[in-house]
């Protein structure tokens, strides 16, 4: 089942094209990351599907239905910044959110415990630190135990311990069967938390798929055939280099201090390299297939210019 489907979604702000015909689907029970640099259109996209912004073109649906107030009541959302009444306490703010969602007040204490704000539940929102405000917004999204959660930069303003807690919370929610849609510009966060990712740049969807597929380069919108990196070491690096040059599939060999970094095509595995070297009389003292980080893939996909 598809939780969210967006089709050809576009948004123009006068001459600025904030979103250009973006289409993708969010499968059920995934942690779906929307990754992109600042100003790439992530929040615009989430704003449209939550009905606070009007699309210039295209459409979206939640669980196969046209987005409306009733569907939004079943989604817990933190969009952009924590939005609360400054003069009200945390508990009163959550009371308002619960009433709008048509839920009872019994959840309020529970969600405040989850985000460690229970002790401060009667403090006014304007006395909260940035991190506490962010945690309150997450608490508000958890009201009513919704099956779908939308988090826009959920770890914004949190300290390292808070960041780890929230990431663990997101994974825990996913383990309980929740679908989480999460926008972030932090690559590490998406890599650690998400099962699926869509990469957006300047309002254009560059790629979408499972994190594994995006890393390996076989996701939607990309040409296949990405290289594999293997680090190798032996007592005689020159002899090793000579042997590797004979091996089919090896594309490039770079010497890095006391080891070699070999780029191969995707058909080559570390085991094959080991076997090949052994048969040629070379004993390896180092063999490490380097997994590409999402950061590497991200830069490959979006380019390296700072004006991404």
């Amino acid at each position, binding site marked *: 089942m598809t939780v969210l489907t967006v089709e050809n979604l576009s948004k123009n702000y006068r001459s600025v094209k904030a979103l250009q015909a973006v289409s993708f689907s969010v499968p059920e029970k995934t942690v779906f990351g929307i990754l992109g640099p600042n100003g790439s259109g992530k929040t615009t996209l989430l704003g449209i599907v939550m009905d606070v912004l009007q699309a210039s073109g295209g459409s979206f649906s939640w669980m196969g239905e046209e987005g409306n107030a009733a569907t939004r009541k079943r989604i817990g959302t933190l969009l952009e910044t924590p939005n609360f009444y400054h003069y009200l306490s945390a508990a009163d703010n959550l009371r308002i959110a619960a009433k709008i*969602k048509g839920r009872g007040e019994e959840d309020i204490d529970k969600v405040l415990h989850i985000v460690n704000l229970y002790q401060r539940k009667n403090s006014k929102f304007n006395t909260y630190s940035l991190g506490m405000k962010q945690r309150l917004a997450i608490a508000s999204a958890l009201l009513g135990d919704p099956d779908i959660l939308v988090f826009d930069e959920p770890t914004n303003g949190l300290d390292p311990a808070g960041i780890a807690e929230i990431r663990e919370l997101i994974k825990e929610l996913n383990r309980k069967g929740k679908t989480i849609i999460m926008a972030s510009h932090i690559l590490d966060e998406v890599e650690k938390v998400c099962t699926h990712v869509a990469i957006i740049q300047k309002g254009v969807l560059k790629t979408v798929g499972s994190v594994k597929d995006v890393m390996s380069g076989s996701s939607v919108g990309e040409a296949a055939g990405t290289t594999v990196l293997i680090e190798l070491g032996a007592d005689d690096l020159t002899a090793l280099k000579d042997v590797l040059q004979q091996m089919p599939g090896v594309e490039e060999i770079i010497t890095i201090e006391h080891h070699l970094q070999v780029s191969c095509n995707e058909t080559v595995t570390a085991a094959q390299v080991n076997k090949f070297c052994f048969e040629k009389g070379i004993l390896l003292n180092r063999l490490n297939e380097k997994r590409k980080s999402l950061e590497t893939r991200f830069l490959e996909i979006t380019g390296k210019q700072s004006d991404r």
Partner: protein
Amino acid sequence: MLNLFKIEWLKIKTYRTFWILFLAFLIFFPVAFYFSASKYMESLASSGRMEEQILKSMIESPFVFPKVWLSASWMGGLFFVLLGMLYILLITNEVQYRTHRQNIIDGWSRMDFLKAKFSILIFFVLVSTALIFLSGLLVGLVFSPANADVFNGIYFVGYFALMATLYLMLAYLIAILVKRTGLAIIIYFAVVCILDNVLWLIFTLKNSQIGYYLLLEPVDSLVPNPFKPKIMERRTVDDYTLVIAAVVYIGIYCTAIVSYFRKTDLRT
């Protein structure tokens, strides 16, 4: 609508500025009205005129039945700008805190948001109209002769309710369009205190009745200044026409608010 009002009440029940402005209206108006009446009646009694003349003046006094209903409505209108200002504040606060976005995200439709704010408008109109009625009744009973016809002229309280509604609808429209609290309040006061009167004056000096149809003038004219001598009255348009004009304005403002808010991007 009642459920929406209950949520709005949660938002404002502990908001200090709300209580300051709301109580200022609830307290200052009746107190000021009673003291004005008291001083006016005292000055009549001590004017040194013949008893017959005093009696005649007292019967025509703005603070005895039936004219007290007009006076209460007119003076209530002067104090009502406090609630107009408060109403703007309650709407622009939502934009400033971005809670108008959050309310929609949490599951209100855009119409729910508008209706919730409209429920506050109704609340203000009902409370202020009740206050005008009670103040008029109290002052009338205290200062009128025993045989006065209490409810003659009570329709002015109805005119007040219409005036309050139109004033708040204008505040609503300005707040939704302008979004910034300070600027919205300045524009509101500029329209209420200056533009409205200047337009009326320009047309009235040209011996035109058009001035009575512009902006807030239909309701202002339904509740004229009770201290203004009748000889200065230039209005020939009847009350019935002005009521229709006011209702048309309310309809126009309402349509403008709904059509704008349903399609706009909710930004700060």
